[in-house]
């Protein structure tokens, strides 16, 4: 079987999970509710500014939920179907399969991000004027992260899209890493979801209790530079240490690192399973 065909089959397996569609339905409803909550007076370029702000404001929660739901079952699928032993006899080897699975996951991340941008475009088109894609950001700057004010909104949207795809892919690779150690998809979902939810709860509630303490400072730093911070654009804070280009470089490095680590651990586990 060629690699493309293998990728196609893996994609089919991933996208045929009914859990994804149930989560997608709920997330879409909640996301549209979240869009309504961003009420603003009518000012120029509002469509593009709101589109740039929607993912860092609420969209990243739903992207994270869908990543956890979709990716959690990607690796344990064979185990849960009772064919993991059969998989060990696969001609091209487990390593190839893992590479293909991780590429399919990247496609999945791109689809999710595109889907939420699509929903936001659809909702905002009904209320705001679409003109101004090539206007400069400084005319009505986005609120949730720092971007070069000389950029046009077209450049900003391309940058933001790339950023969120990379951030969500890193989170997805982390879920893959978890699933190399945990065999049941529900528990992977539970642990992956809890890690993300704990970060959000910290940011929304716990920080109010300990915000003035030194511990609060350390935990905020951890929040800012872990998965929640990545997905909510905290790496691009106005006073953050990274420039826009450096963040891309860093994310690519982390993604490659996790990709390689998953391959290494996957190969090691194969040897353990084979007993050699």
């Amino acid at each position, binding site marked *: 079987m060629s690699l493309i065909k293998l990728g196609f089959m893996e994609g089919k397996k991933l996208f045929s999970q009914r*859990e994804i569609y149930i989560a997608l339905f709920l997330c879409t409803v909640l996301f549209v*509710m979240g869009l309504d909550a961003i009420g603003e007076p009518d000012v120029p370029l509002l469509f593009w500014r709101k589109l740039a702000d929607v993912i860092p404001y609420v969209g990243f929660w739903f992207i994270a939920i869908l990543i956890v739901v979709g990716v959690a*079952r990607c690796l344990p699928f064979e185990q849960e179907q009772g064919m993991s032993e059969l998989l060990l006899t696969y001609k091209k080897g487990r390593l190839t399969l893992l590479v293909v699975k991780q590429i399919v996951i990247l496609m999945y991340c791109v689809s999710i991000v595109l889907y939420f941008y699509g929903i936001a475009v659809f909702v905002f088109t009904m209320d705001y004027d679409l003109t101004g894609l090539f206007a400069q950001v400084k005319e009505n700057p986005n609120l949730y992260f720092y971007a070069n004010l000389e950029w046009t909104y077209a450049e900003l949207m391309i940058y933001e899209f790339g950023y969120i795809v990379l951030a969500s892919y890193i989170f997805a690779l982390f879920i893959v890493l978890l699933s190399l150690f945990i065999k049941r998809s*529900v528990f992977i*979902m*539970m642990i992956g979801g809890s890690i993300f939810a704990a970060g959000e709860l910290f940011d929304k509630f716990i920080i109010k*209790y300990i915000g003035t303490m030194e511990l609060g400072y350390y935990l905020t730093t951890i929040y800012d530079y872990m998965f929640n911070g990545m997905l909510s654009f905290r790496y691009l804070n106005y006073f953050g240490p990274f420039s826009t280009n450096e963040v891309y470089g860093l994310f690519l490095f982390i993604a490659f690192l996790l990709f390689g680590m998953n391959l290494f651990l996957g190969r090691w586990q194969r040897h353990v399973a084979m007993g050699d």
Partner: protein
Amino acid sequence: MLRWEIKKLTRNVWNIPIITSVICLWGIMLYFSTQARFWYILGSLALGFIILFISTRLFILDEEEKVSEVILTTKYGRWNLLFQRVMTAGIYTTGIVILFLFIQVIGVLLFNRNEIDVHELLTVHFLKGCLLVWGGSVLFSVFTACLCTIFKSHGVTAILSGILFGMTYILRGNLLQQYSFEWFLEKGLFSYLIRGENGLFEPQWVVIIVWYVFLMVSMITITIIIQFRRHEI
């Protein structure tokens, strides 16, 4: 039968780590803040977590262990099996609520730095919503049990209930229009009840009671109809 079912839940390996985490986090919260509220986030979330991932699993265990066909030949009857399992979920949840109340009280007594009257502290500030917590958590465990029985998938149940339960902590609808969709999402999906003390000052109690009765009756009816069609009761 009930004893065996309860054993299945109490022997789950996740019980100890979750309860230990609750004890540690409650201790940390009390150490750092005198205003800490147990059920507001920590207790209610941990309880929701336990219901979703431990108690609900009882309803899918037969499928996972591929013994559902054998279990359905039970001499005690399939109705009895379903009833006993729902009872088990309720009893287990009650046990966890009592354990959490105990953890809450012990924590309060140990960290009572302001020398407030203990009786007042417990009755007025901490234990006032415990009946509501108990009611909410038992209802939630029955709700998730019904969902799990309908979908025959722990994953689907965890996603459906988890998103609806968890989102109320992030998307707060307190200030929204009464009886709107957001209002029902905030108050009508168990986390509002499990958070306890908030509910005591709820002016629209009658609407909320009617809503929960409607929700539970519909859920149980749908479960019974689907089970009946599958010849599982």
